[in-house]
């Protein structure tokens, strides 16, 4: 049994959540307990398959899986003259990192949502949609086929938009869902046009084949713009971040925690396009695109945190902080891309900058997810997200307060937690690249700390308020979900080195090694 499952892991990675989603309407009819059991079973199975796949990739190198061929590991059929013709999943170390993030986060938020959404109606549809969002994100990060990436991008956009509009909230959530879906569909259309340009010229859909045939004609530059702009928009980079606060604030808290991972999957797509598809050192002007990411990053950092200070809705405040933290990832990887050309600068600080950026992706997914879950816990008990109306909850909700402190200190980059580990990597490497950027990053970090101290004070400290007399700690599933994420936040903070060596360093090597990415499919089978 073990070899059978291990051999077909990439297929099960998508098939299990889809099966869970398709059977949900039927299982849902059989009552609450059966439905919750099915949801927990599906979430555990998906996370187990995801972590097993990531472990297999980190142990044995890139995993290839060809759908529908004679054998799972043979990318090039004998009579095809050396071109891959089917859909191939190429899970390298970078995809494995993203699969780990999606697996951990989806397990935590599904357990959390068992209690958090128990008062809502239409829960079968909610859980089916959640499984589809998880399947869409897992597909986006592990596929090696450009059109397959578009299909999974569309699944996660539609499922995300429907989940944002789930609570309806007298039309406010539906408005946020409509705007998110409209922007995502426009972005997907641009990606589809770029696919049309690439297949019109190179008659290939596999990312490795396209990369090997890329000649950087003007059409390819138009295709690059049509690919990079929508993906940057969907990961919440500043000039196009308007949908993020609305969508994150009105979605149910467990969904918001996973929308963070879904936008990081778009960030992964942006890096995959820039590094693996277009990253050829001779033609590709890596300096300009490095600075494109850096400018995007610095803008996101600064605008995000300055817009966050005046907010009084706690989830909208956290959404702006999510935009500003995305800036750190863009800055880290942007510095790496900017020095991709000269080898010594890359060896000195380029790789550490990218390691910092990638490490920040997983850290941010964990502590931002934790913060959104604590905001959801407060909303579950008090029924409001308005900071002016909250206060004195620390007395009755001690665990939520502890989890909020862990998340807030982590996002501000305070030492014992994981935020500090990745931000330190970014500070020291970006400082060698250009001191000004590093100082901006530090200032933004201090502003983040200030903002979260204010939120902590207005939510948990102060005298116990009369209207919250009946407030007590949240049910166990919510605490379990938060604990799962908090354990990672503390563990990665206290001992970051094993995480960096085992998970992040191979991902950086995989991202930079374009020739290896192509050789895995075209080189030899």
């Amino acid at each position, binding site marked *: 049994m073990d070899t059978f499952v291990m051999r077909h892991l990439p297929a099960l990675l998508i098939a299990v959540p889809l099966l869970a989603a398709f059977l949900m309407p039927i299982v849902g009819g059989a009552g609450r307990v059966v439905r919750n059991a099915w949801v927990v079973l599906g979430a555990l199975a998906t996370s187990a398959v995801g972590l097993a796949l990531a472990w297999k990739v980190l142990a044995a190198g890139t995993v290839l899986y060809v759908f529908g061929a004679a054998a799972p590991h043979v990318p090039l059929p004998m009579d095809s003259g050396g071109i891959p013709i089917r859909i191939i999943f190429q899970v390298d170390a970078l995809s494995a990192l993203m699969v780990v993030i999606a697996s951990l986060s989806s397990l935590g938020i599904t357990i959390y949502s068992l209690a958090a959404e128990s008062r809502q109606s239409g829960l079968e549809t909610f859980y089916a949609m959640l499984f589809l969002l998880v399947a869409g994100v897992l597909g986006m990060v592990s596929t090696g086929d450009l059109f397959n990436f578009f299909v999974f991008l569309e699944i996660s956009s539609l499922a995300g938009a429907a989940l944002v509009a789930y609570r309806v909230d007298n039309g*406010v959530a539906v408005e946020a869902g409509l705007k998110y879906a409209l922007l995502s569909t426009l972005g997907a259309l641009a990606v589809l046009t770029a696919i049309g340009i690439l297949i019109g010229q190179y008659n290939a859909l596999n990312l490795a084949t396209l990369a090997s045939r890329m000649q950087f004609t003007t059409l390819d530059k138009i295709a690059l713009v049509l690919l990079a702009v929508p993906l940057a928009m969907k990961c919440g980079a500043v000039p196009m971040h308007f949908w993020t606060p609305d969508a994150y604030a009105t979605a149910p808290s467990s969904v918001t925690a996973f929308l963070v991972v879904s936008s990081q999957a778009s960030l992964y797509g942006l890096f995959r396009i820039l590094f693996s598809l277009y990253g050829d050192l001779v033609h590709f002007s890596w300096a300009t695109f490095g600075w494109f990411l850096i400018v995007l990053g610095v803008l996101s950092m600064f605008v995000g945190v300055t817009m966050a200070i005046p907010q009084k809705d706690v989830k909208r405040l956290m959404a702006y902080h999510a935009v500003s933290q995305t800036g750190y990832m863009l800055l880290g990887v942007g510095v790496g891309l900017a020095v991709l050309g000269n080898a010594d600068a890359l060896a000195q600080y380029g790789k550490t900058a990218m390691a910092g950026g990638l490490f920040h992706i997983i850290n941010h997914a964990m502590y931002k997810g934790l913060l959104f879950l604590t905001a959801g816990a407060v909303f579950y008990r008090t029924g409001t997200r308005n900071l002016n109306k909250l206060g004195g909850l620390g007395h009755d909700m001690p665990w939520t307060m502890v989890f909020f402190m862990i998340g807030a200190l982590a996002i501000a980059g305070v030492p014992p937690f994981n935020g500090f580990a990745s931000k330190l990597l970014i500070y020291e490497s970006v400082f060698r690249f250009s001191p000004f950027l590093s100082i901006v990053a530090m200032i933004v970090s201090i502003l983040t700390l200030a903002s979260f101290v204010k939120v902590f004070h207005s939510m948990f400290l102060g005298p116990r308020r009369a209207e919250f007399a009946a407030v007590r700690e949240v049910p166990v599933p919510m605490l379990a979900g938060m604990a799962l994420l908090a354990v990672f936040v503390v563990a990665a903070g206290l001992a970051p080195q094993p995480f960096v060596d085992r998970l992040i360093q191979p991902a950086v090597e995989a991202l930079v090694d374009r020739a290896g990415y192509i050789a895995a499919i075209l080189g030899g089978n």
Partner: protein
Amino acid sequence: MRHVLFSAILLLFFGGLMYLAADLPFGDPPRTDMDDYFLRTAQEQTGANNVVTSIVFDFRGFDTLGEATVLFTAVLGVGMMFRKLKEGEEYEND
């Protein structure tokens, strides 16, 4: 001001895409090796006369699974929007 901005975006788009229209050769695609493989082997490998259906369901069947999922997502989404809400479920945005 709004109209100037929008017309600027439209002109930019029009110019970029006009180049695209003029540059991509219509009628004789530069490379056709993958498609020739499909045309050559579809009948023998999948047994279907309609090569497009053999691609949709056999060579790239996984895309079609994703696409059926997209349709299923849309149906769930529409169902979610028109469900009967319990009273007090909606949070009044203060």
